[in-house]
């Protein structure tokens, strides 16, 4: 049996390191595209201020990128070190997009990033722009393949369990690529990255304006960020709504948990704006509901139902019982009784094998589970509702606030009166953390909402770990906490330092600090 401590610590470690990694990813995704925009303007107009913008924001990009690379390797390693059974069970499917990501995207991004920083004097203008474009393309393609892998964890299409090899095997690569969950996630995530990059440039430029220094530089940066940011936040919101629709289609449990939808309502279901979810009593106290909205988001219709948690648990209990049969047949097949009747019977219930494996937490043998154990396993299929309910609403609130900031910035930028709106400049500055809060809570919803599965309805998280001792986990967790804390302090120190110095850090002699010194 797997120790619960090891499972909990492995989950904690993965959650911490993944969320930490995602502090750096969205800024890389967004800034790389902003750099492309700025440098394109430079190449088209020949105005050197746009080159300075590319170089200065590129410097901040580099500080962020270094930690993105550092923390990304951790995630690749961790599947093998901490989730060995996961790696064995789904590596055939999940490993492929990761390897292709390396070949197609990560090589591109990492090879050209060096030329981005060091190639200014060695490449022609157009060559350098090409390098910047390829770097941005590399980061975005990288996100595509990673999200194809992640999308498969949420909605495992194009693969089937093979009892001979005791693992999931790919049978349709196109289905893996065109997985609707992956597609929607990709556009939602990269657009969120563009928002992050935009608000970062917007907020820091606003600070220069408030300090009334390097105004031509700040104004142009602000304008580009406002335009790109507005387009991006609109995409995030529209595509986020599209994710809601896909959830209603393939991840009904997650949707019900996010919405604290305990009972199946007659269609169209209302949307719970606020309330206090109570998992024990299976109800939401003082709920404020808006009629029809959830039904519209999740089903795009007024006649389809959105299933409630109680009904889902009952359905899952049925599947767990069928999964017990599947497990029993699998044992027969593994012990060598491979007659056609057994194989046929197994393929009948194979899709419920994952539900059977949920019982492993309570009984090693699965087939001898008691009614009580089955009931507990069925209850496990619903993630904890309150954290999902709240983090989802936090994400949406941040998104709406950012929509306001970008819309106002864009409007006053177009009217050329933004510098006389200190309230907006201050708001933009202090709003810099918002996209990170939104992105982290969004990922929390996506991954915590996937529980108890590491691969949706296929492999329970509980079974996915490595056979490690808790001592191993305390060692690695301590290492990560120490390293990551120190690295974050160093990173923030450099980021603040160079953001404060501003374009003067380029030592061109054209900017604020150099001129006041003269």
């Amino acid at each position, binding site marked *: 049996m797997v120790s619960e401590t090891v499972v909990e610590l492995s989950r904690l470690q993965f959650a911490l390191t993944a969320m930490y990694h995602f502090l750096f990813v969205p800024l890389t995704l967004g800034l790389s595209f902003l750099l492309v925009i700025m440098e394109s303007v430079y190449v088209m107009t020949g105005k050197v201020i746009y080159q300075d913008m590319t170089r200065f924001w590129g410097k901040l990009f580099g500080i962020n990128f270094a*930690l993105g690379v550092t923390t990304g390797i951790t995630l690749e390693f961790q599947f093998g070190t901490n989730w060995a059974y996961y790696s*064995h069970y789904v590596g055939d499917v999940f490993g*492929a997009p990761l390897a*292709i990501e390396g070949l197609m995207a990560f090589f591109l991004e*990492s*090879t050209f990033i060096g030329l981005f920083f060091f190639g200014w004097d060695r490449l022609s203008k157009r060559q350098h722009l090409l390098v910047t474009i390829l770097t941005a393309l590399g980061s975005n393609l990288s996100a595509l393949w990673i999200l194809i892998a992640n999308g498969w964890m949420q909605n495992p299409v194009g693969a089937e369990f093979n009892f001979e090899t005791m693992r999931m095997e790919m049978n349709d690569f196109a289905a893996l690529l065109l997985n609707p969950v992956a597609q929607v996630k990709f556009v939602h995530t990269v657009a969120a990255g563009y928002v992050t990059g935009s608000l970062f440039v917007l907020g820091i430029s606003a600070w220069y304006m408030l300090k009334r220094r390097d105004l031509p530089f700040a104004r142009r940066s602000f304008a580009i960020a406002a335009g790109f940011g507005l387009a991006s936040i609109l995409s995030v919101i529209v595509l986020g709504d599209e994710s809601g629709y896909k959830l209603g289609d393939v991840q009904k449990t997650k949707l019900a948990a996010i919405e604290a939808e305990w009972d199946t309502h007659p269609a169209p279901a209302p949307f719970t704006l606020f309330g206090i979810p109570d998992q024990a009593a299976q109800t939401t106290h003082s709920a404020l509901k808006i009629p029809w909205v959830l039904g519209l988001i999740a089903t795009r219709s007024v006649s389809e139902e959105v299933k409630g948690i109680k009904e889902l648990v009952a359905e899952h209990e049925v599947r767990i019982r069928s999964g017990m049969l599947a497990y029993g047949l699998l044992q027969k097949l593994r012990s060598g009784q491979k007659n056609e009747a057994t194989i046929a019977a197994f393929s009948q219930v194979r899709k419920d094998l994952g539900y059977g494996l949920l019982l492993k937490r309570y009984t090693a043998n699965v087939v001898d589970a008691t009614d009580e154990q089955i009931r507990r396993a069925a209850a496990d299929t619903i993630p904890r509702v309150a954290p999902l309910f709240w983090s989802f609403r936090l994400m949406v609130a941040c998104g709406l606030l950012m929509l306001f900031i970008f819309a106002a910035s864009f409007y006053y930028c177009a009217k050329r009166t933004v510098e006389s709106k200190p309230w907006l400049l201050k708001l933009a500055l202090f709003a810099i953390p918002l996209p990170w809060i939104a992105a982290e809570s969004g990922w929390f919803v996506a991954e915590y909402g996937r529980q108890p599965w590491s691969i949706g309805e296929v492999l329970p998280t509980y079974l996915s770990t*490595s056979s490690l001792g808790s001592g191993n986990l305390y060692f690695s967790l301590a290492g990560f906490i120490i390293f990551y804390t120190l690295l974050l302090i160093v990173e923030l120190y450099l980021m603040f330092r160079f953001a404060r110095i501003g374009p003067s850090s380029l030592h061109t002699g054209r900017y604020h600090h150099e001129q006041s010194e003269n």
Partner: protein
Amino acid sequence: MILDYETLKLVWWLLIGVLLIGFVISDGFDMGACALLPFLGKTDEERRVIINTVGPHWDGNQVWFITAGGAIFAAWPAVYAAAFSGFYTAMLLVLFALFFRPVGFDYRSKIADPRWRRGWDWGLFIGGAVPALLFGVAFGNLLLGVPFQHDELLRPIYTGSFFGLLRPFALLAGLVSLSMLIMHGAVWLQLRAGPPVRERARRVAVIAGGILIISFALAGLWLALEIDGYRVVSQPALDALPNPLAKSVQVARGAWLGNYTAYPWMMLAPLSGFLGAGATMLLVRVNRPALAFFTSALSMSGVILTAGFSMFPFIMPSSTVPVSSLTLWDASSSQLTLTIMFWAAVIFVPIILAYTSWTYKSMWGPVTVERIRATDHESY
């Protein structure tokens, strides 16, 4: 072209070898250079010379390592699971050491404080030397056999400890990999760094080449005389669905040399290991670093292939339950996955090689103390 399953399994063994060789040839020289950083650079500017010879390239180089990891995950999931979880502490030490690289390169010269810079110099040293050493230790342990087994669900269970990995033979293998990466890094510095780093690097390359030849020869003798090798006695058809528990395995002294008797051409691998290192020592002496870079790469490829050929078809033998050993025939992914990955590699590896060459060509030229002074704010 449709490849049959047996051929695909073999091709993926070769492709993983290609990725590992690509990793030591490219990332190897920047790791070697970093391992030498505190010793060959006496002043801050000399250290910046060393760092900036690899500055534009280390990141792309490192992707060879990451992609090799990803390819092992996709092509040999069972190996990825058993090796990464079994070598848990060692893997994390490699990971923690690698942490120092991206931040070390990018952050070191952003602040002029000498303590800050010296600190990162040692960080970069760790990021180069520790992985270089531990990769060899890992290969040494594969040759010795790893204490692990599978349960009835094919979950890999490791029964050894971290300190159990530090056996004398494994440490010798660590010395082989450390000296070969240092040789390679020193050749690179002779090729790209200005004086006086260049002259110092030349002397180091000769010494490291010598240590490589001696340690590699000792490891070979040890393997032949003292170490139990593994041999497949019977197994299902080579194109069968992979099941590690379906074969039978014999453990025997000297079994790791069996392949060289059966396939004498495999002797080319150790031979190029030795001759490449010898040629490198000569070429750096007569000041031909560009040629020496090729012979050094040849030597490292020879060393890696020697480990691969000796164990073939084993990838990860189990010392406690030999039947749980993983071979390229029974640890591979499905035929479809191997096929898709094969085409991805066939398409992308040449493209990667093409644009990587272009970046090297663009940044070519000696990195000197004068150049660092002239580009103080743009350089690492």
